[in-house]
Structure formats: structure tokens, C-alpha cells
């Protein structure tokens, strides 16, 4: 870390200082204040990561700085100072000259924060126009910033509409918009959360470079300590509206004080799993599976090769993680193995018996043995069915007496860590993590031998993720089923898997024991993935030291 920023005795005056900021949360919220008495400061050219999970109030702070808090969230105390001057009240007209010119902001979903029916160039030039830049100067400046964020062919990008850009390009365009008027502070609200890990790494590197080149201070709002490890000078951790820990990034990462901080860091740097009992006989295996999605009609026919010549093997009681970025075909593979898609060629065997050709009753019979937990716990449960009835449904379908099935369901509800009384309630009454527990109970009610989890923790906050992963491991020890865990998140894969399969463009490019793949990735793509995963190499360095 560079010396000038260290310690309280920093000679430079803070660029942004927030003192005792309190924002009320009127109405039915789970707490009276969205943000309670937060104080921190950012020096010029410094990156501060504001870390917390959803609902921690971290985004509220970012919005308050730009005067964008809605009426529903009134500021009830404290003050925000920028470059020595106190900020106008929320939503004041005076913010018009501050936004973009002095403080710029970028959001999580870059694609959505661009107007879909206007060109990138038009939207960027508009910002210059709003701030009084004369017309002849606009276009050169727009092209200049587009070049600055390393977008290829700035001329073409300027003419493009948002939907013609990839997620990474859109985020670069949004960052370019933020740079237009050379602001002193950039507020970045989870700008890389929606991106694939390799794209995320590029965007983080871009922000780090711009920070130096433009002497830009950055308030980086994130939930991910991996990101903190990559770019933060300082860290502030928020939990339920309260600042629980703050300090220099290295200090916090190496020696977190607050238990909540420790939990968040552990999620990025999980303890690799200790191997459980294993059989060697494959319980589920596949050879040369191909799946092609066809769509369109007449001259418009399209075919998408979603799974290409995939072979894999899962031994009883083992956990295999399939890792890949979005569009790599990993979820399609899961649907093939679950027999939810008809494969175009290849074979899938369960305990040596061919299952890819089963239909009707024998297929329904097979489903007892291979169960699924899906990504989105909010859509995975029928909103009109009580959770007890949802969990009991599988056994009832397969011939168990309803009374026995309900008895079993009640036991499972307790087993996954919910109270026995909650069986009569509807899914809407549960949180995301609780719903995922219910989904696991529903899958286990059939006592499956293989459990396929499709991004089963991706929709959850990191601390909840850890709990659900523990639950998977615990139940696996108890019941001995094999798990195929589909995930885009290397930290999750590391926490749960014995074996790793890496997928890229519908094909498996690497597979092997987790230890080996993480320690010595063989395929260049795996190497790139590991290098891009935020924080992982830092932690590896840390644990080696």
C-alpha cells in the first residue's frame, strides 16, 4: 500500500466525508433505520470498498451521496461533505451540477442502465450537453472516453445500441459515461456482480487503472471480499445498517475483527472439503452426450449446440462440481442428466442401466433416484402449495400413503433446520435461504442416490450460501447420495467438490480431483478462470506465507 493513505495522520483532506449518516426506513421494514450513524471518509485517489450483503444498507449510502434517495427513505441525521463543502439536501436541484461533473455513479446492471432505444454515443453526448459542453467538442470527447475504457472500435460502439454490446462492453460504456466530465469520485454499486468471472477481472483491472490515471477516488459497493482483495485501499463493512468494521484493506483481510467480517471472508476463501466415504463404482455416467436446441422457422432456423460430446462419471457418495461461465452449457447438461431434455446423441446410464431412452412410467420410476435442487428458490416452489404438501408430494407420487408421506415430510422439515410448525405455511412466507432448505427437503423425500444442484446457492447472500453448502455436506454424510453441483463460482466449487469438471462452450475442457485442479490447472481456460477469480490468488499467497 502507498504510504500517504495510511493511518489517521493522512496529510490530505478527505474528498468525501460522511459523518453519522442516518436514514430512516419507515413502514414495514425489518428495522427502523436503513442506515444508522455511519461515518467514513475517502481521500482523493483512494478506493474504499463498502461491503455488505443485500439489505445491509450499503447501496443506500451510495445513493445518499448523490442525493438520489427516494422520499420513502428520508435522511434523519448526520451530514455528507464533498471537497470540504456540505452537500445539498436529497433530490435538490443543486445536485444537477454535482452529478457526473464531480461525482459519477455506475450500477450493477450496466445493460439496464443504458436506454435501450438510443445509441451509446447519443447517450454519452447528452451528458456533455446537459453540462454545457459546446456541440463541436462533444463527439471527440465521447470517442476519447470510449477509447480510454479500451472499447474496440469506438466509432462503431458510439453508433451501437445497448443490446448490441456484451455485458462487459456495456459496463465499459457505462464507465466511459462516468468519466466524461472527469469527476473526482466514482461510486460503483456492485458493478461486476452480474458479470462472468473473467469479464469481472477485466472490469476490476480497468477501474484500478482509471483510478491511477485519472486520480479518481472510488466508493466501491460490493458484497464480495474477493473484489475487496483485488482493488480496495480501505474497507468498511456494513451489517443491517450499522458499520461493524473499517480499516486498511490488508489489515481487515488478514485479521478481521468482527465475526460478520470473518464470515464474509470465509465465503471467498473456503476450507476445502474433507473427503467423505466413497464408492468407486460409478452411479451415474454419461458418454458423448450431445444436445442441440433448435428454434425459428423457414429461412430463420437456428441451432444451438448446448452440450457437445460430454462424458462424465459420478461415483456413489461423491461430489462433482461442474464449473463454467454463463452460456457454457452446464445447466443444459444438468437438464440432460435429469432427463428433462431429450438428448440428440450419446448415452446416460444409472447404475449401468441405459436411461436416455426411457419414457413414460419407467422414466417416472427412475426419477426417484435422481433429484434436483434449482437455482432460484423463489420460483422453485408452487406458491399455492403448503411446504408440507410440497415435500410430501414426491413420496405420494411414488405410492406412499399420504399420512406416512406427511409424517416423513414433517421429519425432513426439521432435518433441514426449519421448525416443525412451519409445514402448514406457504413458500412466500419464507426467506430465500429457508426456501432452498425446503427444496432440499423436497428432493431428499424420495431418498435419491444422485442429487443434482443447479446453481443452488447462486441466488443467496454469501453467509447464507455457506449455511446451505454445510447443509448439503451434512446431509450427504448422513444419507450417502452423490452430488452433481453446477456452479459458476469457483469458491463454491472449492468448498463442496471432490472432483471438478470445467465446461467451456458446451464442452468439458478439464476434469480431475478438486485439489489438483485448483493447485495445478492444466487447461489454459481453467488457468484463466482461476486467475480471474477475485481474491483467490491473494488468499493463496496469504495461506502460503
Amino acid at each position, binding site marked *: 500500500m502507498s504510504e500517504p493513505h495510511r493511518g489517521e495522520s493522512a496529510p490530505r483532506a478527505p474528498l468525501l466525508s460522511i459523518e453519522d449518516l442516518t436514514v430512516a426506513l419507515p413502514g414495514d421494514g425489518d428495522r427502523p433505520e436503513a442506515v444508522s450513524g455511519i461515518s467514513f471518509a475517502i481521500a482523493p485517489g483512494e478506493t474504499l470498498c463498502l461491503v455488505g450483503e443485500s439489505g445491509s444498507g450499503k447501496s443506500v449510502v451510495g445513493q445518499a451521496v448523490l442525493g438520489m434517495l427516494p422520499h420513502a427513505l428520508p435522511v434523519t441525521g448526520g451530514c455528507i461533505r464533498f471537497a470540504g463543502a456540505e452537500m445539498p439536501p436529497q433530490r435538490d436541484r443543486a445536485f444537477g451540477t454535482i452529478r457526473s461533473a464531480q461525482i459519477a455513479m455506475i450500477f450493477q446492471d450496466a445493460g439496464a442502465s443504458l436506454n435501450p432505444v438510443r445509441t451509446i454515443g447519443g447517450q454519452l453526448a447528452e451528458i456533455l450537453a446537459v453540462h454545457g459542453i459546446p456541440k463541436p467538442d462533444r463527439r471527440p470527447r465521447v470517442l476519447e472516453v470510449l477509447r480510454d475504457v479500451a472499447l474496440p472500435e469506438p466509432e462503431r460502439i458510439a453508433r451501437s445500441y445497448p443490446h448490441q454490446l456484451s455485458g462487459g462492453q456495456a459496463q465499459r460504456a457505462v464507465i466511459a459515461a462516468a468519466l466524461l466530465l472527469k469527476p473526482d469520485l466514482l461510486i460503483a454499486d456492485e458493478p461486476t456482480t452480474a458479470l462472468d468471472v473473467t469479464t469481472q477481472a477485466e472490469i476490476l483491472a480497468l477501474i484500478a487503472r482509471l483510478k491511477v490515471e485519472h486520480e479518481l477516488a472510488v466508493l466501491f459497493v460490493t458484497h464480495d471480499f474477493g473484489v475487496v482483495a483485488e482493488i480496495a485501499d480501505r474497507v468498511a463493512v456494513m451489517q443491517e445498517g450499522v458499520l461493524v468494521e473499517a480499516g486498511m484493506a490488508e489489515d481487515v483481510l488478514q485479521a478481521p475483527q468482527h465475526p460478520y467480517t470473518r464470515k464474509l471472508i470465509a465465503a471467498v476463501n473456503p476450507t476445502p472439503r474433507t473427503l467423505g466415504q466413497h464408492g468407486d463404482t460409478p452411479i451415474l455416467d454419461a458418454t458423448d452426450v450431445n444436445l442441440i436446441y433448435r428454434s425459428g422457422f423457414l429461412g430463420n432456423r437456428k441451432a444451438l449446440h448446448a452440450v457437445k460430446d460430454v462424458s462424465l462419471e459420478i461415483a456413489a457418495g461423491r461430489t462433482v462440481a461442474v464449473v463454467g461461465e454463463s452460456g457454457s452449457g452446464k445447466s443444459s447438461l444438468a437438464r440432460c442428466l435429469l432427463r428433462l431434455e431429450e438428448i440428440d446423441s450419446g448415452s446416460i446410464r444409472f447404475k449401468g442401466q441405459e436411461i436416455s431412452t426411457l419414457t413414460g412410467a419407467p422414466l417416472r420410476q427412475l426419477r426417484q433416484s435422481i433429484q434436483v435442487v434449482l437455482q432460484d428458490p423463489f420460483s422453485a416452489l408452487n406458491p399455492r402449495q403448503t411446504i408440507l404438501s410440497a415435500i410430501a408430494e*414426491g413420496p405420494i407420487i411414488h405410492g406412499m400413503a399420504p399420512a406416512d408421506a406427511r409424517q416423513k415430510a414433517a421429519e425432513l422439515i426439521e432435518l433441514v433446520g426449519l421448525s416443525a410448525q412451519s409445514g402448514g405455511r406457504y413458500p412466500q412466507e419464507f*426467506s430465500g435461504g429457508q426456501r432452498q432448505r425446503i427444496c432440499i427437503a423436497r428432493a431428499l423425500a424420495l431418498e435419491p442416490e444422485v442429487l443434482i444442484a443447479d446453481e443452488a446457492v447462486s*441466488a443467496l*447472500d454469501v453467509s447464507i450460501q455457506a449455511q446451505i453448502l454445510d447443509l448439503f455436506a451434512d446431509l450427504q454424510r448422513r444419507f450417502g447420495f452423490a452430488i452433481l453441483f453446477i456452479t459458476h463460482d469457483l469458491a463454491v466449487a472449492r468448498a463442496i467438490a471432490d472432483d471438478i469438471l470445467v465446461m467451456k462452450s458446451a464442452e468439458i475442457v478439464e476434469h480431475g480431483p478438486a485439489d489438483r485442479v485448483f493447485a495445478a490447472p492444466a487447461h489454459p481456460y481453467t488457468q484463466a478462470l482461476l486467475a480471474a477469480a477475485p481474491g483467490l490468488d491473494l488468499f493463496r499467497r496469504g495461506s502460503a506465507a
Partner: protein
Amino acid sequence: MTDTATATRTAPSIPLSVKLAMIFVVCFVLFALFGHFLTPHGFRETSLFHRLEPPGTEGYLLGTDARGRDLLARLVTGAQITLVVAIVGTVIGAVLGSLLGIVAAAQRGKTEAVIVAAIDVQASLPIIIVALFMLAMFDNSFTLFLLLVGLNGWEVYARLMRGATLQAKESGYVTAVRALGATPARIYLRHVLPNILNIALVQFTVNLPLTILLETALSFLGLGVQPPLTSLGQIMSEGRDRLMTAWWLTLLPGVIIFCLALSVSMIGDWLRDRLDPTLRSER
């Protein structure tokens, strides 16, 4: 806020306007069912001595028409017919359209293509034009008229239900239940149907006033319900020539039609907001 349990169901209070609308609908139904106790006259009973009596005439509470028939008695019968045509017609459209929509989404392939093409054709022909064409081609009978009115809006149900079924089919809960080994019958009856029925119900309340307006419009043109039977629209049509001298013959049934359509659509709007605030008006 992923991990704070939400949505405890609270009973919402009914706004005053919706309460009034409900009261009107109940009164209208009671009027249709028991209104004939209010008058000693039959709806076809003519009296040469009591032609075009204004409302308030003794023995003729709401006055009489040009043939001396009691307006109150005619309104009761008109209300009955309008109510029957509206409800039967709306049910025909709802059942037919919903079934076609669900079948299209469940079967995909050629069946779906045919149904979607039929929806496109219907959508490019206003139902009143179809009705007029059929009434010109065939003899006007009450059954034909009922069927034609019943076709009103079937394509909207079909489109909505097809979309909703496709969405439900792709939803996580159906995927999970399929993976449990449920039969297609179980999936559709216990999981898909309960989740898409709301949409048909809301559309029903949007379609019902439209069906009332279609029936009364056709009857007003003299091409709908034929004498000796009568409906609210037909009463208006008969009174139209004497609008200047006996306005009540036209305006009374007209105002009843308007209030009925208004009440039903207000209840429908309220129901839509209650069942699903994200569901937008389809018209």
C-alpha cells in the same frame, strides 16, 4: 432483502367505490330475478289507453312505451335476458379460449401453430363484424346470437392462457415436480392450472362488461335479441324514435347498461390489483 421473510397476507379493505359497485351488481341481479313482483303487468301486455305514459303514472311506475307496455316489466325481462346472454356468452368465450390456449401451450408443434393462426385471424376481425356477417348469412335465432356473443374475446383468453401456461411450464416448481416423477395430468391439474386460473378470472371481469356492451349494441341495432323477446339494448332501440318526447324509454335502459358495465369493470380492476398487482390491463 433476501433473508427477511416477507408477505404476510393481510386482508385488504374494500374501497368505497368497489363496495358501491358490488351493491349495484347485487341489486341488478335481484331486480332481474324478482323485479316482476314490482309490477302487475306482463312485459308483452299492451294497453291502447296507456301509451307513452311518463314515469310515475299510477299503475305504471316507470311509464309505458308507444304500444302501452309497462316499461318496468320490460326492463325486468330485458335485464334477465341481458344477464343470461352476458354470463353464458362470457363463460363460452372463457372456457373455449382458455382451453385452446392451454392446449396450444401443452402440445406445442402443429396444434399450437394452428391455434395461434386462429388467434391471429380472430384478432384481425372485430367480433361485431363477425357477428353481423353471420347474422346476415343465417337466420337470426337466440342460440346463434348467444354463440356469437360467446365468441367475444375468446382469442384474448387463448393468448393470455397460452402465455401463462408456457411460463408455468418453464417455472422452477413445474421442473421440480416433473423431476419428482409426476404424471402430466398431475402437473397440469395440481400445479399449472391453480397458478394460471387467476389470469382467466381477471380477464373474465374485463370481458364481462365488453360482452354486455356487445349484446346491447347488437340488440340496439335491431340485429340481436328479436321481439317478442327483449333485452335492455332492444328496449333502447324501440324507444329511440321517441327520444325527444319520451326520453325515459331510451335513457333508463341505457343508464342501467352503463352502470352495470361500470360496476363490473370496477370490481374487475379491484380484483386484478388484489390478485396480482403486476398484471396489466390487457385492453
